[in-house]
Structure formats: C-alpha cells, structure tokens
C-alpha cells in the first residue's frame, strides 16, 4: 500500500484538508510524501503555498509536454507536489471512457521514490476523480459527521465496487471511511457514526477529525495544522491518522 486517494463525490467534506494535513503529518514523521492535486480549483496546491498558475504542473504532464518526475514541486512543509492548474478543466473534457487509468500510469515511475503518495480528487462524478480512484491502493472516504453523510459514502462505495472494479483489475483496493467535522459535544455526530458503523463496521476509522475553525485558519495562513498548532485536537487527529497509515502500510507491504 502506497497510494492513498481521498475521495467522495460530495463536495465540502474535507477532502483537501485531509489530504494536505495527513501529508504534512506523515512528512513530520520523516516519511517521503507526494501530494497529487487533481482538482482544477487547485486548493491543495494553494494550501501548500504554491502558485497554481506556475509551471510545472499536472496539466503539462497529462498533455505529455512534461515528464512526471520533472514536474514535481517542493514545498516548505516537506511535502512534494504534482500541482494542479486551472487548465485541468480542459483535461477533464478531453478524457474519454477508458482513460481512467491514465494517472496510474503517470505516477507509476514515482512509486519507488515515495513512502506515500496522497491524491486529492475533485468532487462530482468526473473523469479526474475516477483517475484518482483507479490509481489508489487505499481509498479514504472523508465523510462529514455534521450532515447525513451516509448517502454520499454509499454512492462512492457502490461506484468503486460495482463499476470501477468491474471495468479494471482493482479488486486489491481497500476502502476506509474517515469521519470529519465531528462534534463530540452534540448527539448528532455520534449518532451518524453509530449508524454508519452498523453498515460499514470495521471500515470506519476510529480516529475522527473534529469540527474546528483551525482548519480555515490553517488554509488562510498556508500552514498545515501540525505546524500551526501541533497540540490542537485537529492536529492530533491527523497525527493519529498518519500513525495508522504507517502501521497499515507496514502490515500490507
């Protein structure tokens, strides 16, 4: 296990926040981490304090004018990035059915260079999201524990297991659900998680990302929470997730 894709078709459930903060937490533990930003809004690219208009970027790699190993950009947070660009929207239009494994091919030569490759996907049933899913060894589904997230999780799991696994040889993939925006002081969030646990049991991660304004502040300041406020419960949660991934990676090596 090496490539982890953060994906759910629903928007606003902390895909980018989870990708960037997990990456930063892993890097802090000495792991070599690459973030792949597939979202044309380039939020992960911006979060890691890179200019999304700059070259090299993932658009150039998809267009074949730049090789993936030469398109990697360094960040001051110890994480490497294949950055997004507004022109990724054109790639989305140009991808045709059958092109779902293009990203897998792109990152293949990079796998040996990294302990973890984390992929941030755009929301919606988009070809680039499918590319992110097809490239994954492990799919982490960030689900908001604020609203009824169960439908969104079921939609993603159904799509992966019924369509993607049928079309491509991906049945080695594993899926886990990461609850985000969790409010432990209300009855609502625990109730949502309890309900989800009845359906997906052990596929729900024990660690839950708390609801907090620290993530907005972290994005504004372009500093991952592990650096901004290492003792904050939000930072500790991503630290726990990073430890879980390292253990999981060792067990499934």
């Amino acid at each position, binding site marked *: 296990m090496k490539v982890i894709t953060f994906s759910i078709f629903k928007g606003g459930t902390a895909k980018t926040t989870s990708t960037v903060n997990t990456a930063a937490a892993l890097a802090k533990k000495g792991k070599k981490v690459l973030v792949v930003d597939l979202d044309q809004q380039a939020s992960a690219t911006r979060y890691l304090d890179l200019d999304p208009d700059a070259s090299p970027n993932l658009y150039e790699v998809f267009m074949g004018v730049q090789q993936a190993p030469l398109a990697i950009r360094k960040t001051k947070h110890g994480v490497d990035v294949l950055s997004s660009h507004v022109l990724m*929207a*054109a*790639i989305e*239009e*140009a991808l045709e059915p059958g092109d779902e494994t293009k990203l897998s091919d792109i990152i293949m030569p990079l796998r040996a260079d990294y302990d973890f490759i984390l992929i941030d996907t755009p929301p919606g049933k988009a070809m680039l999201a499918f590319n992110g899913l097809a490239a994954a060894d492990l799919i982490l589904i960030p689900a908001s524990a604020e609203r009824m997230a169960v439908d969104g999780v079921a939609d993603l799991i159904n799509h992966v297991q019924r369509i993607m696994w049928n079309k491509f040889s991906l049945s080695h993939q594993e899926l886990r659900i990461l609850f985000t925006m969790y409010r432990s002081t209300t009855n609502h969030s625990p109730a949502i998680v309890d309900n989800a646990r009845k359906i997906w049991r052990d596929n729900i991660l024990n660690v839950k990302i708390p609801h907090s304004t620290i993530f907005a502040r972290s994005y504004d300041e372009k500093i991952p929470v592990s650096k901004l406020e290492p003792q904050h419960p939000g930072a500790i949660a991503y630290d726990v997730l990073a430890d879980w991934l390292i253990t999981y990676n060792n067990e499934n090596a």
Partner: protein
Amino acid sequence: MKSYLNASEVAKLLKVDRATVTRWAQQGKFKGAIRIDKSHQWRIPISSYEELVKNDNK
C-alpha cells in the same frame, strides 16, 4: 485522451455559447483548429485552447 475538443466542450469551459466558439474558430482564433468535413464538427487543439486562456489572463 483526446488532443482536441469540439465547440461544445470549449463553450462549456469558457462559459460562452457554442455559436461564439464556432465564430471564433472561423475567425482563426484557435490555432490549428480544423473542421471535419462530414460532421461539420470543429476540432480545436487543447494547446490552442490553452493559448487563448493564457493570453486572456495577461
């Protein structure tokens, strides 16, 4: 992956009408754009779309 887009796809990306894209293509605004004889569909190279987007942002 296609290396070109049709007028509808470019229209969607630029959030303009398809007729506008067709007119621009006829005016030669997209370098290398060609029209397929049978279908009358425009084939607009992604690289020429890129050029247009980048020049507009300048």
